[in-house]
Every structure is written in structure tokens, then in C-alpha cells.
């Protein structure tokens, strides 16, 4: 083992030790808690599944993080905290050994063992399971993609139980942020005996056995999922809420109405266009924290018109993000002039130098770029978006910017969401609405949007030098060096103008004043119910 690696490993080991002490829910001293610790939180949509192997959305993940606990977890400040693993160490660049706590139990009282993780991970990535996001997470584990692709059997996956309390994980390459990866619900343990017994019905109330802070009490499809405190949970003493009802209300107006009539304590998200009015009405209940998400327009870099970098740059330069943010969307989303959003780990934010120019100068430069590229005023561009009022408003604004400042005509193509994403993935577009939200906090998830050949790269751009920098960055064990390389890579690739970054997502929502434990600075917008508590009111 080389010296810098050894140093880094000792830092990590220390960090793991420090985490162990910081696990309890942080309730400020002197806080008076309500006698009844029950909460209703709207989760936005019906979960597609409660089986950790099949979940793909944030909504389902949020419930499953309450029901199941992985090796690690993330708290309401988005800090990594120990879960079933009480400690871990990295033994070489790609090998990690996790020590599981003996007090970790399933809700039926049986011990959670390393074999439960081995079984769960193999099942998740097994082609027979056909998990939709198998490749998203399989990529991190040794032989993960070979298993997903059916080239190797699941038994070849880089995970093994050394003994019931010790799990060894081998990664495909260095994954310095592995602690965040294994905190997602998809990497939680699964109870093999229960799954074998009930098959698909193992996730139903009465059948499900889970190891998280909560157990499943009731599940009414398209209505609600009710969970209750799990007395077998190893940290049950620090779990305040005894019962949580997850609503599945998609309609933001219905969500608001439930909030106003006192049947919902925690909104999923307010409807577009009402942020300022609701903020004035509920100044102390409105929260609007930045999210690790980017709103952008994908540019098809293989399109005959857009393959010219000058055209792509001109289109990006003339969109006034300040007006977009303050007048069009008007819901507190910060303007964006680079790939990385505020709060994203392992990368610095970059900003185009022209972002600070006066608009006249930007327009003059953009017109010159178009003239140099031989694009005449009156040229048509096609903009594709999915039919929601929010996206439509943004699209009309962008089209008007291109028309008034560059003389370009925009043909608007409003599609259903499924049709839009299919067209985007197939490269059947010129300019298309896009949005991206990180499932855990690391720059890698954003960089996949612009990496050569990435499945997430609908722009179809490729900058080999940037890719090399990313690869080099991911080999670093020193976080500072990694961050410097990834920042450099992002700047380099964004100077090719593969896409038009517009805004950073925020989550405007109303929360009742008696809900404690919400930290709106948590950019992942993931909140375990065990971190909430009800104040006396």
C-alpha cells in the first residue's frame, strides 16, 4: 500500500469512527416534544414498488429508506451516518470491509447478517429480476455490469460475506464516495426467506419483514402508505415519530388543499406560479431549499445545425437566466451558468465568463457567432418539451429570447413525457427540455450528463480530454485532488456548449411549524422519518 493511500485510508477509518457517535436524531436541547408523535407527509406519487430491488424513483426510495436500512445512511443534513454497518475500512483501492452491528435485527427479531446483503445485491442486479436501474448502481461493483448484462452469474458479483457480521465489497474501480452509494435503498438488505415464501406479495402489509426504523402497516394504492415505528430497530430509542402516513397525492393543488385543511403536515411541492403568493401567506411555513438538480436544455450535438459550437454557444448566451428565474419561473430557483450546482460534492461550480457581461454585449457576440457560422436570421430551430404549464412557460421565454435577440424562429413541439424522453434518448430532436436530479451527493452523477457515450448523455457530445480528467479524478484518493480534476473536466466540457444550463432546482414546499428536523439545505431532498419530530403545539 502506498503512503498517500495509507494516509487517506486512516482518515476514512477515523471518519467512520466519528460517524458512529453522531447517529442520534439532533433535537436541540430544551425542545419540548408533543405527546403525539405522528406525521403525515405527502410523497408526491404512488411508489412504483416497495421492493428495494424494483424501486427507481425518489418517492419510492424515500419510503424504503424508512423501511430498510443499508450499510450506511444519510441523515437530514445529508451527512453519511452508519446504518447496519457500525464501522468500515478500506483495505485497498477497490476493497472495503464493513463490520455489521450485532444489534441490527429484522422486524421479526432475526439478525441482519452479511448474507442478507449478498443476497439482496445479487438479486437486485440479476438480469432475471430486471430491475430498471440495475445498471445505474451495478456500475460501481466489481463485475456489476457483467452480471446486469448476463455475461457473468450473480455469484461473481464483488460482494461476499466473510462471516455473519463482516461484509467485503469490491468495486469495479476506485469509488471514493462508496459510503454514499451504499446508503441508497436499492443497496439495503433483503429477507430471503420472506421473499421466497411470498414471492411478489412479500411487500404487502402483514407479509413484509424489514430492518429499518419503521415497519409497513398499511398500503392503499394511489392513496397512502402507513408505517409505524419498528421496536426491533437497533436505534429505536432515537426514533421519535411513532407513525408516519405517506400520502401519494400528485396534484399540487390537491396537496395544498390537504395542507390547508390540516390533513397534511408536509407538502411534496407547491404548484408552479403560486410561490410568491403562498410565501406571503405562510411566511414561516414556506421552505425553498436548493436541490442537487439542474434544469437545462439538451442540445443535439450531432444535429447538422447544432454540431457547430458557435451556434450552441449563441443559443446559450442570449437566454437571460435572471429574468427566467425572477419573472418566468419565479419560485426561487437560482440561475445557472455551468454544469455543477451549488452544494454538489467533489466539484467546484464554474460559470461562463460572459455570464457577467451586459446583455447587449452578449447579444452582439452571439449574433457574430451565428453570422460566422453562416446561420441567417429566420432560420428555424425545433424545441421539444413535455406538456406542462411550467415547461411551456420556460419554452416560450427561450423561444422569445432566440427570436428577439437572434432572429431565430422556434418551432415548438409539445409532447407527452414518455414521448419526449424516447425522442431525446434516440437523438430525434434539436433542442429538448431536460432535468436531472442527483440520487446521492457526488459530482459523478452530473458528469455522466456530458461524458462520451454515457447512457445519460442525450446531447451526444464527446470531449475525450474531459473524460480523461474525470477518469484521473476518480483514481485519486485525495478528495481535494479529485475535486480539482473533476472541476477542470466540467469546465472543459462545458466550454464545448453541449447543453444550455438554466436553473438549479429548488423544492418550494409548505411544512407545518411543529415539524422539527427539516433542514432545507439538504440538497438531496431525502429525509428519513427517524430524523423528524413533532414539537409541542
Amino acid at each position: 500500500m502506498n503512503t498517500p493511500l495509507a494516509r487517506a485510508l486512516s482518515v476514512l477509518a477515523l471518519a467512520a469512527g466519528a460517524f458512529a457517535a453522531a447517529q442520534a436524531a439532533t433535537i436541540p436541547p430544551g425542545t419540548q416534544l408533543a405527546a403525539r408523535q405522528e406525521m403525515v407527509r405527502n410523497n408526491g406519487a404512488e411508489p412504483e414498488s416497495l421492493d428495494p430491488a424494483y424501486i427507481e424513483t425518489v418517492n419510492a426510495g424515500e419510503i424504503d429508506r424508512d423501511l430498510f436500512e443499508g450499510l450506511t445512511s444519510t441523515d437530514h443534513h445529508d451527512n453519511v451516518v452508519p446504518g447496519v454497518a457500525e464501522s468500515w475500512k478500506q483495505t485497498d483501492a477497490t476493497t472495503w470491509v464493513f463490520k455489521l452491528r450485532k444489534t441490527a435485527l429484522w422486524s421479526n427479531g432475526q439478525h441482519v447478517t452479511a448474507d442478507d446483503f449478498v443476497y439482496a445485491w445479487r438479486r437486485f442486479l440479476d438480469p432475471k429480476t430486471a430491475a430498471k436501474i440495475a445498471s445505474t448502481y451495478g456500475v460501481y461493483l466489481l463485475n456489476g455490469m457483467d452480471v446486469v448484462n448476463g455475461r457473468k452469474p450473480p455469484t461473481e458479483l464483488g460482494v461476499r460475506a466473510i462471516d455473519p457480521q463482516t461484509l467485503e465489497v469490491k468495486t469495479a474501480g476506485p469509488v471514493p464516495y462508496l459510503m454514499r452509494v451504499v446508503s441508497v435503498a436499492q443497496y439495503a438488505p433483503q429477507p430471503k426467506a420472506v421473499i421466497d415464501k411470498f414471492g411478489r406479495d412479500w411487500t404487502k402489509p402483514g407479509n413484509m419483514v424489514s430492518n429499518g426504523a419503521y415497519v409497513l402497516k398499511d398500503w392503499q394504492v394511489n392513496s397512502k402508505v402507513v408505517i409505524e415505528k419498528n421496536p426491533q430497530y437497533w436505534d429505536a430509542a432515537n426514533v421519535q415519530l411513532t407513525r408516519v402516513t405517506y400520502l401519494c397525492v400528485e396534484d399540487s393543488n390537491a396537496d395544498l388543499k390537504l395542507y390547508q385543511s390540516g390533513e397534511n403536515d408536509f407538502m411534496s411541492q407547491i404548484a408552479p406560479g403560486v410561490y410568491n403568493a403562498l410565501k406571503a401567506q405562510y411566511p414561516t411555513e414556506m421552505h425553498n431549499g436548493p436541490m442537487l438538480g439542474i434544469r437545462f436544455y439538451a442540445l443535439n450535438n450531432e444535429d447538422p445545425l447544432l454540431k457547430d459550437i458557435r451556434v450552441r454557444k449563441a443559443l446559450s448566451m442570449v437566454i437571460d437566466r435572471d429574468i427566467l428565474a425572477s419573472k418566468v419561473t419565479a419560485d426561487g430557483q437560482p440561475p445557472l451558468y455551468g454544469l455543477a450546482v451549488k452544494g454538489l460534492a467533489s466539484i467546484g461550480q464554474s460559470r461562463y465568463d460572459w455570464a457577467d457581461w451586459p446583455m447587449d454585449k452578449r447579444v452582439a457576440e452571439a449574433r457574430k457567432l451565428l453570422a460566422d457560422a453562416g446561420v441567417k436570421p429566420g432560420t428555424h430551430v425545433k424545441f421539444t418539451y413535455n406538456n406542462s404549464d411550467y415547461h411551456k412557460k420556460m419554452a416560450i421565454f427561450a423561444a422569445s429570447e432566440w427570436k428577439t435577440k437572434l432572429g431565430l424562429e422556434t418551432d415548438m413541439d409539445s409532447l407527452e413525457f414518455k414521448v419526449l424522453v424516447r425522442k431525446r434518448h434516440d437523438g430525434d430532436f434539436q433542442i429538448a427540455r431536460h432535468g436531472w436530479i442527483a440520487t446521492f451527493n457526488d459530482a459523478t452523477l452530473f458528469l455522466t450528463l456530458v461524458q462520451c457515450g454515457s447512457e445519460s448523455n442525450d446531447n451526444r457530445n464527446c470531449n475525450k480530454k474531459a473524460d480523461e480528467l474525470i477518469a484521473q479524478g476518480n483514481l485519486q484518493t485525495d478528495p481535494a485532488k479529485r475535486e480539482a480534476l473533476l472541476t477542470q473536466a466540467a469546465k472543459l466540457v462545458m466550454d464545448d456548449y453541449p447543453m444550455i444550463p438554466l436553473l438549479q432546482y429548488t423544492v418550494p414546499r409548505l411544512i407545518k411549524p411543529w415539524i422539527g428536523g427539516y433542514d432545507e439545505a439538504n440538497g438531496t431532498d431525502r429525509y428519513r422519518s427517524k430524523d423528524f419530530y413533532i414539537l409541542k403545539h
Partner: protein
Amino acid sequence: MWAYVVRRLLVTIPTVLAVVTICYLLLHFTPGGPFDTERKVSDAVLANLQAKYHLDQPLWKQYLLYLGSLLHGDLGASFRYADWSVNDLVARALPVSLAIGGTAMAIAAILGVALGIVAALRQNSVADYAVMLLANVGSVLPSFVLGPVLVLVFAIALPWLPSGGWDDFAPRYMILPIALLTLINVATIGRIMRGSLIEVLSSNFIRTARAKGLPMRVVVMRHALRPALLPVVSVIGPLAISSITSAIVTESWFSIPGLGKLIVNGASDRDYTLVLGLVVLVTVMAVLLNLVVDLMYAWLDPKIRY
């Protein structure tokens, strides 16, 4: 008559088959598929998913496989709701929709007929105008306007009832959605009943009955009501079916886990099996309701014989 019923039921089979076939083809030729998401599903995973749902087979084979399961009463696995079969989903949502829609329909029918009678008998009186005003308001205001007004008044301004949600058929969650659907339907039924009764009351046989000195109550109840109900009955069938479609708005607004929500989500998620399952269900319900309407015709009008 029983032969007629059996014949009508047998006709259901080719009707359902035709509807399923058309819907099957439409769904499969609609752009965008069940596995299209913001984050592209990798080719290997897509292949696994297609194999799991038999989408890797030729379309005709998929179709035959589907028909085979349908014959066994199996509506297949849902694409969107991974932990549930379509049978499970329908079995849970149908009672909810029936409870809301059926109750609303029954109240609307009784209330609508009663109001129609009052309006017809007191033609051009204050009672008539009041009923007609209610009927016109109910017809003009769409459910997405009437719904929020009800919630604003009875859930937020006067916090008597929950503004939405569902709790295992608890009546307090059902009152507002039932009231909304009732208001919409009572307007139509009341209007038709009024017009129909006025027309019947001016018929020769009614004039004869009155000339014989029968009291008005007897004339209406014994002679006028049955023929006047014919147009009402003919509209109740389509109204009941359209209650399912109007439930799309109502259920979404009140967050009720019924069929309407499944239809919306199924279509936008390209949940082929779920949409087909619901189409089969609605088709069968439509055929049966029409049959019931036709049988009621025969009961109401002695001239009609099957």
C-alpha cells in the same frame, strides 16, 4: 326474455374482443413505451425487462399470450405498479369507484326524478324556476370548478369535512366527492325528467284519466310516471359510464384511489396491461348497463317486448 338476455350476453364476447384488439394495437403503436424514463434504461436492462413482459416476442404472439391470460381471468402484471397484478389493482379500485359513483348515481336518480316531477307539476312557478336554475348551474359548471368550490366551503372555510383522501370507506371522506358527482348528474336527470313529464302530461291518455276525475297524484303516479321515466332511464346508462370518466377529475381532485386514477396513470405510464384491463372492465360494464337499461325499458313500457 331470457333468450334475449343470453343473446345479449353472448354479443359481449365479440364486443370485448374487438375493443381489446383495437386498444391493444393503439397502445402498442403509441409513441413512448413503459420503460422510457428521464434516465435512459441501459440496453441490457431493457432487454431483461422486455423478456420479462414478453415484449421481445412478435406483436401477434404477445397479443395471443394476452388473450390466453384474459381467458383465464388473468389481466397480467402491471408495468407501473411492480408489486401488484392488474387483477389486484382493479379489485382494490373498483369497490372505491363503485361506492362513490354508485351512491352518487342512486341519489342523483332519486333526487333528479323527484325534482323533475316537482318542476313539471308546478310549471312556471318559483319551484320550477328554482329547480331549473339548479339544473342549469349543475350542467354549466364543470366538476373542476364545482369541486374546488365545495372544498373551499365545506373543508377549508367551514372545516366540517376532509378536503380529500381516503380511509377505507369512511363516510366522511366520501361525502364531498359523492356530493359533487350527484350535483352534476342530478342536473341532467332533473332537466330530462321535467321535460319528459310535461310532454306526457299533455298526452291524450292523461287527459282522459283526468277527465275521468282521477286525482292528480294518482294520474302522475299510476299513469304518467312510467312513460315519463323512459328518457331518464335511457340517459342513466351513459351517465353511469361517464361517471367513470368524470371520476378521473373527481378522484384526482379528492385524491381517491379509484379507477379514474388508475386510468390516468396507466395511460401516461404506458402500462399496457393495466390500460387493457381497465378497458375490458369498462366495456363489460357498458354492455351490462345497456342491457339493464333495455330490460328496464320493457318493464316501463308494455309495448316493448323482447
